[in-house]
């Protein structure tokens, strides 16, 4: 199994181009998405690819790993022009892609997924114990503390992503292409990933990397290539390239402040949502208030129960105890529809599994949550739906070159924007946004933050659940930190800072609010 990697360690041929794309163009049907893009990847380097949502990053990566074939242009591997074999068979050549969209079989276990298509077997007979042993090692090396026999469907999204990473690590790649691996990861997990990336780089692996988190790009990469609207814009050494400069080249204009100025909250504003003593299987005695016009951040580690609190409030997870008061009306919601009718909507962090119908177009997805608004007694008003789409496309800057594109074929960031547009169609008075900017480019991120601030200014109450601390800090009036299914602390004003959040999240501050 093990390829002799040691030779590469001793001779880091860092200047050698291992994989090169030359004048690649790609069209889907008649819709062009890449225009004569060239890109090279050297052994022992991390080459970041950045660009706005829909710029064509994922498409380029899929072409360079054989999953798509280019409409024109050539690919050189080891100096030879090649036609990469399809469907991941390029892995046999040492080219491994971690897809932006998770590529795991949900009902199968971690081990089964990690070895899928690459089982350790003799004459077709599985060597289960060898695979088990290997998986334990691999999981350990990426710091993932789960049983190898866990089914994927039982994992959190971050854990799934780590399984993807573990899977890629297990392949002994010469070229490792990673499409937004950190989008769903926490800081801690990102650190682990970067340690591994660094190790591989030292071994002479060529690494291609996409992230919308520019500080990560700055930290981990050696070179950066910028794409805009399917065009190559520039390739630069990372050293000396400022974040602002990256952002400017990506979006083609100067970006003002990422975070909008936050208006003071009105302490006397009505309480929009009040939760008392909420408990579920994993949540214990959670109580808090949300005022009209307030942006309330929810921070904490993955698995600390933030999602479950709000899924319980919206009738998606059974509640054991507790009461909920919305605008003075008390009463639990048994279904999402009841919550929606009371003005509360929840935007899931799992956009593929729970957010969008991948086989449908933008139109159907956009209006699904608020569909009764588009109907008079069951009857749909298609005109109204079309108008809504046109409005949403403008308002959220959803970029699809083909308006009839299926959700599954949209770029990740644009899917996220569509999802945001979808929940906003319900005209909520309380919006719970779980990981609002997952996979969103900086330019759009800025737009979303401003959008959230504007909504709050209009009196809408907003909960932002986020694993990105700067985001929570940058946008919230108040931050609640959760730990082990309980509220560990509430931060306001100047107390909203990373140190405080981390202290509560890690259990170093044992103050319990609302206890």
């Amino acid at each position, binding site marked *: 199994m093990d390829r002799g990697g040691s030779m590469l360690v001793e001779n880091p041929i860092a200047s050698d181009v291992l994989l090169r794309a030359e004048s690649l163009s790609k069209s889907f049907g008649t*819709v062009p998405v890449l225009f004569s893009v060239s890109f090279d990847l050297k052994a022992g380097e991390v080459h970041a690819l950045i660009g706005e949502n829909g710029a064509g990053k994922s498409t380029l990566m899929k072409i360079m790993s054989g999953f798509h074939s280019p409409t024109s242009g050539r690919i050189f591997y080891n100096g030879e022009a090649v036609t990469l074999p399809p469907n991941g068979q390029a892995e046999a050549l040492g080219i491994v892609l971690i897809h932006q969209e998770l590529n795991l079989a949900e009902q199968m276990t971690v081990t089964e997924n990690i070895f899928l298509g690459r089982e350790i077997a003799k004459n077709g007979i599985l060597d289960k114990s060898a695979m088990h042993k290997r998986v334990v090692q691999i999981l350990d090396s990426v710091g993932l503390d789960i049983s190898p026999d866990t089914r994927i469907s039982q994992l959190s999204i971050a854990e799934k992503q780590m399984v993807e990473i573990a899977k890629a690590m297990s392949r002994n790649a010469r070229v490792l292409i990673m499409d937004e691996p950190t989008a769903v990861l926490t800081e801690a997990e990102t650190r682990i990933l970067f340690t591994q990336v660094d190790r591989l780089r030292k071994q002479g692996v060529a690494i291609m990397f996409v992230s919308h988190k520019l500080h990560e790009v700055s930290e981990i990469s050696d070179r950066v290539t910028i794409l805009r609207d399917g065009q190559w814009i520039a390739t630069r050494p990372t050293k000396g390239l400022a974040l602002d400069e990256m952002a400017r080249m990506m979006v083609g204009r100067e970006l003002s402040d990422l975070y909008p100025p936050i208006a003071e909250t009105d302490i006397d504003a009505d309480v929009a949502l009040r939760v008392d003593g909420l408990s579920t299987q994993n949540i214990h005695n959670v109580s808090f208030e949300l005022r009209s016009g307030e942006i309330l951040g929810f921070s904490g580690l993955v698995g600390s129960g933030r999602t479950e609190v709000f899924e319980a409030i919206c009738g*998606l997870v059974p509640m054991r105890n507790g009461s909920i008061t919305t605008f003075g009306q008390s009463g639990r919601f048994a279904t999402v529809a009841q919550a929606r009718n009371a003005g509360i909507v929840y935007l899931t962090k799992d956009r593929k599994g729970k957010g969008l*119908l991948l086989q*449908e177009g933008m139109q159907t997805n956009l209006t699904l949550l608020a*569909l009764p608004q588009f109907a008079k007694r069951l*009857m749909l008003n*298609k005109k109204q739906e079309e108008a809504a789409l046109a409005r949403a496309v403008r308002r959220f800057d959803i*970029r*699809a070159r083909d308006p*009839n594109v299926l959700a599954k074929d949209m770029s990740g960031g644009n899917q996220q924007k569509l999802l945001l547009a979808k929940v906003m169609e319900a005209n909520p008075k309380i919006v719970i946004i779980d990981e609002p900017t997952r996979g969103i480019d900086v330019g759009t991120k800025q737009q979303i933050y401003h959008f959230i601030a504007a909504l709050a200014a209009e009196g809408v109450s907003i909960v932002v659940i986020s694993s990105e601390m700067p985001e929570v800090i940058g946008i919230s009036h108040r931050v609640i930190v959760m730990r082990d299914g309980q509220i560990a602390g509430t931060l306001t004003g100047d107390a909203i800072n990373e140190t405080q959040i981390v202290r509560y999240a890690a259990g170093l501050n044992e103050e319990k609010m609302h206890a």
Partner: protein
Amino acid sequence: MPDTAQTQPASNKPKIDLKMYGPAIALALLCILGFSLNTAFLSEGNITNLLTRSAFIGIIAVGATFVITAGGIDLSVGSMAAAIAGVMIILMNSLIDVLGTGTLTVVIGATSAIILGALAGLANGLLTTKGKIEAFIVTLGTMGIFRSLVTYFADGGTLSLSFEIRGTYRPVYYESILGVPIPVWVFIMVAISGWFLMNRTTFGRYCTAIGSNEHVAQYSAINVNKIKTWTYVIQGLCVALATVIYVPRLGSASSSTGVLWELEAIAAVIIGGTVLKGGYGRIGGTILGALILTTIGNILNFTDLVSNYLNGTMQGLIIIVAVWLQRADWGGKSKT
């Protein structure tokens, strides 16, 4: 700032079109075949027969389109039809003594059939959703139950509509309005309502969403269990309607009534382009699918070129080819 690029609608359209017109093309080819075997194929009489016959399976298949689109399956429809027909006949026969042989008896019989159909569908739906039992098992079970109930009611034999009432009821199958037989009118109305429900209402949209991804549906405030249950109720209503126009045709019900209708109905749905695993339903296609199936049977009655023993072979081949015609060109992606 670059705006959304509103470009050509291209690329998926042609595929969708092939999918749209595939069943129509297959039907047209069959008609040409039929006509070339015997010009009487296109005679008014035969066309009328064909349409009238398609009505049963067609109406049932419209219901099945909803069930399948929402990710379910109903194997019980044939037996359900038999059971409903049986109860309806018993009821009408006994009503004659009380209410006579007038329209009222027929109306009450038909109304009861509709109610029974809704209840039978409700049972299937609740067992599937609340009972959390696979639709395949639930409806395989009720298939056996309904069929054996009609055998039981008929004491192993046949339940016959009393001859006194037949005269009143017969026209429902045999009469025409504006030259079109009543069953065909019913079929047309069910088709239009079905199309409308599927494509122009929240209900249809919800069926598609549930069949496509139940989680997404749930997170989109859709009451998944309620909608799924309703698809079975609609299926039951369609079965009942089909039965109401079936009974005056043959005036009886027995354990052999409606045998294998479930397979025919599902076949009509799939031939019409609906995806068996759910998430994509086409009522128009289903109608064509039902017409295709009936036409195959009709054509086989047109010729004795092949041994009767080989009817099944012909039928099988034609079904496979008809579907292959519309699917083969779909381009690389294998769906389902």
